[in-house]
């Protein structure tokens, strides 16, 4: 068993010339509740590449958010990361000490959340919250910048003094022409204008915050900095969240359902913005969503999660063109679309399994129409079946080629049809 798993993980390489930036290996996060151990994430492995968007798609309770939180080690009690590796730039984040990990959060790996109203502190102004990120991770840079600006400022001050002295001298010896005098006067005026405010730590912070808000398409950032989150619209709030996430130019941005709480037109705005920013900042994005449309819109690769496992992992174009796993197929055909004007939508029978007592073998087998005899006995692992295409399903495993198809009993069919 151990052997198979390690083999499987080693094989997860995608055919790409891009550099691997994050590697999640066999991640397991369990919640120790009173009812029992909830295996929310049970052996998830995937890779992220530079300048790419990976979509993590699945239904409620499939463990996609917990996976993301596990990467940043933000899982709340009673959740615990049981085992696995999260390798970011050759460092296993899970072995790091708390203090070290904090340096990665918000700087190299950042996160935005579903509900922008609750994700912003209601009693702090937008400005305070945006500035905080800079203060946490760019203190030295700001001080360097401050020194630089101070130097400039002093130089300008000196220049003003110089020029004033020139004018004073001129009063005695009258060597300058009228034009030269007016030039000098203009220059002094200009310099005085520029040096009116002495550069401070706060002013630089403010300037930086203003710039980043402008970057995410917030009109009138000066004013927004003074506002409280509840005074902004949903789209604006999500923009503020994005600006905080991008302020330190992170390598990875984890977006946990960033558009779910927003209206369709605002959702389009935010997706558009994320696409632009991703190209501009060369940030890799882990996009977590339940909306296949969003995935298709923005993602390069997709990992489909079901009940704590990744069941399909492929490039977005291949996956949508020809989904292999029965769950993915079911999911796609359950979505009402404009071209299939059918009388009835296809559904997946039954409902999501209990994660405390998940089904034996493949976790999808009680709902699967293509079920084989072997499915409730052996757990399928992600295996490569084509170029950059991985599926965890026995249907595609040559080992079980001859396994007979499972015959659904009539009563069983009837029972599962009704929830």
């Amino acid at each position: 068993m151990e052997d198979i798993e390690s083999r499987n993980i080693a094989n997860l390489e995608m055919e790409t010339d891009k550099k691997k930036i994050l590697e999640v290996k066999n991640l397991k996060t369990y919640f120790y509740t009173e009812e029992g151990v909830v295996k929310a994430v049970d052996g998830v492995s995937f890779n992220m590449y530079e300048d790419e968007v990976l979509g993590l798609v699945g239904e409620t309770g499939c463990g996609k958010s917990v996976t993301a939180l596990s990467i940043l080690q933000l899982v709340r009690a009673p959740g615990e990361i049981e085992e696995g590796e999260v390798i970011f730039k050759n460092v296993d984040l899970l072995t790091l000490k708390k203090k070290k990990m904090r340096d990665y959060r918000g700087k190299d790996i950042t996160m935005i959340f579903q509900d922008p109203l609750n994700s912003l502190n209601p009693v702090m102004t937008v400005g305070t919250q945006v500035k905080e990120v800079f203060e946490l991770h760019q203190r030295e840079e700001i001080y360097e910048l401050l020194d630089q600006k101070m130097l400039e400022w002093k130089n300008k001050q000196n220049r003003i003094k110089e020029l004033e002295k020139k004018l004073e001298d001129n009063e005695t010896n009258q060597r300058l022409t009228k034009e030269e005098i007016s030039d000098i006067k203009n220059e002094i005026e200009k310099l005085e204008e520029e040096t009116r405010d002495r550069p401070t730590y706060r002013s630089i912070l403010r300037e930086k915050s203003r710039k980043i808000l402008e970057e995410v398409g917030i009109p009138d950032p000066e004013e927004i900095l003074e506002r409280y989150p509840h005074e902004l619209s949903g789209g604006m709030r999500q923009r503020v969240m994005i600006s905080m996430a991008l302020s330190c130019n992170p390598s990875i941005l984890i977006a946990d359902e960033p558009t779910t709480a927003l209206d369709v037109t605002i959702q389009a705005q935010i997706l558009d913005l994320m696409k632009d920013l991703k190209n501009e900042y060369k940030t890799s994005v882990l996009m977590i969503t339940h909306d296949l449309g969003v995935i298709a819109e923005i993602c390069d690769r997709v990992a489909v999660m079901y009940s704590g496992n990744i069941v399909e992992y492929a490039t977005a174009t291949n996956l949508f063109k020809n989904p292999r796993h029965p769950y993915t197929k079911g999911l796609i055909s359950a979505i009402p679309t404009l071209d299939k004007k059918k009388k009835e939508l296809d559904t997946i029978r039954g409902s999501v399994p209990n994660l405390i007592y998940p089904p034996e073998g493949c976790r999808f087998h009680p709902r699967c129409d293509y079920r084989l005899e072997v499915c409730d006995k052996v757990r399928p692992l992600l295996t490569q079946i084509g170029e950059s295409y991985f599926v965890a399903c026995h249907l595609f495993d040559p080992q079980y080629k001859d396994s007979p198809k499972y015959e659904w009993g009539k009563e069983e069919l009837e029972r599962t049809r009704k929830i």
Partner: protein
Amino acid sequence: MTIVEEQSIEIPKKREKEANSKRDNVILRVENMKTYYPIIGGFFKRRIGEVKAVDGVSFKLHRRETIGLVGESGCGKTTIANTILNLVPITKGRVYYKGKVILKSTETKEVLKEILSSITFSTIMDSVSYFFIAKMKKLLEKLEIELFHLFQKLKIIISYFPEKIREKISNFLYRTAKRYFRSKSSFKNKIRRNIQMVFQDPDASLNPRMKIVDIIGEPLKLLKNITGRRKLRKRVLELLNVVSLKREHLDRYPHEFSGGQKQRIIIARALACDPEIIILDEPTSALDVSVQAQILNLLKNLQKRFDLSYIFITHDLSVVHHIADRIKVMYLGKFVEEGTVDDIFNNPSHPYTKALLSARPTFDPTLRRERIILEGDVPSPINPPAGCPFNPRCQEKDKHIGCGIDEPRKIKIEGDSEEHFIFCLPFIEEKKSYKGWQFISD
């Protein structure tokens, strides 16, 4: 475990004949509905303004038909539902249920205007009486204070008339008022039963401390007078079977169910009183895709089986495409486009509908088209923009005349079905504007 077969369920398939005999099958008609929420403020908590949540909306709902109300949050689609159910007072306009007025604005001015406009010269010339006051007193007990003052004033006016005229007027006023209040009080029992609502958040609409049998049984007890434990349980079980739930679910509590099952329970509760209309307020937006498909299928089956009419409120265009027959697209309390599903999806004509359609993320690469991304947010309905409410965000603003000045007009789109209208302004180029467009409200 026993599986109850569908045949054993006895839910009367009534109204068949009745339905066919009706003239044009219109079951609900909304006429120029306006719902404004007052903004209370100032030193003495006065009304300092109003939110125009619904601002002049008219539509008809036919039997066995589904109307899709589409729009973004805050556009007033839920307010329409709440107004129809009399959960919020209607400010202006009327709602007819099978040709009878069930909702009228209760504003004093409106009533006054109505009563006064009915008092013609001849009615005054006819009449007489002292009984007016005695009759009124009985009625006044039920009246609101505002109306009381109104009648007080009228009394004074009437007292100047000769005695004979007085009686006629008072009789007339009495009748009008009685009619008015009858229509209002009968609403609660009778109409409430026939119009049911399913809300978005299944958790919020199920009392966590009640068993399923009590949750579904409650409307049966209250509105249908079914008492007796056995009878009630039997009926609840029938309803549960209709929504594919089973006997063992009867005595469970809501927290033991998944989101989809909870929504089924709510649908069962809505069905409890044999409604004719069900207003579905985002019934699937809190659910996962696969569960959403189950619920949509269920709703479609139920519609066929029980002759239901749906008002389906949603922001999801794919869902509305799947389930609706006709669609109304809303923006800031007003309709911007209405038509059949094919009209809207094959020939979206209003810029907002176009943007909405293109903004919807789709995973089918063949269906992907150039996206129109609207700028900015929906303006506040407290202070809506002048003219066409959509004009600050409109991507075709340059092509039309008077977007920020004139109210949009109802324009018929020719070549499509009879019912395809948009609410827009004419094109700048004269020729272009009238090609295939027909102005209605000029």
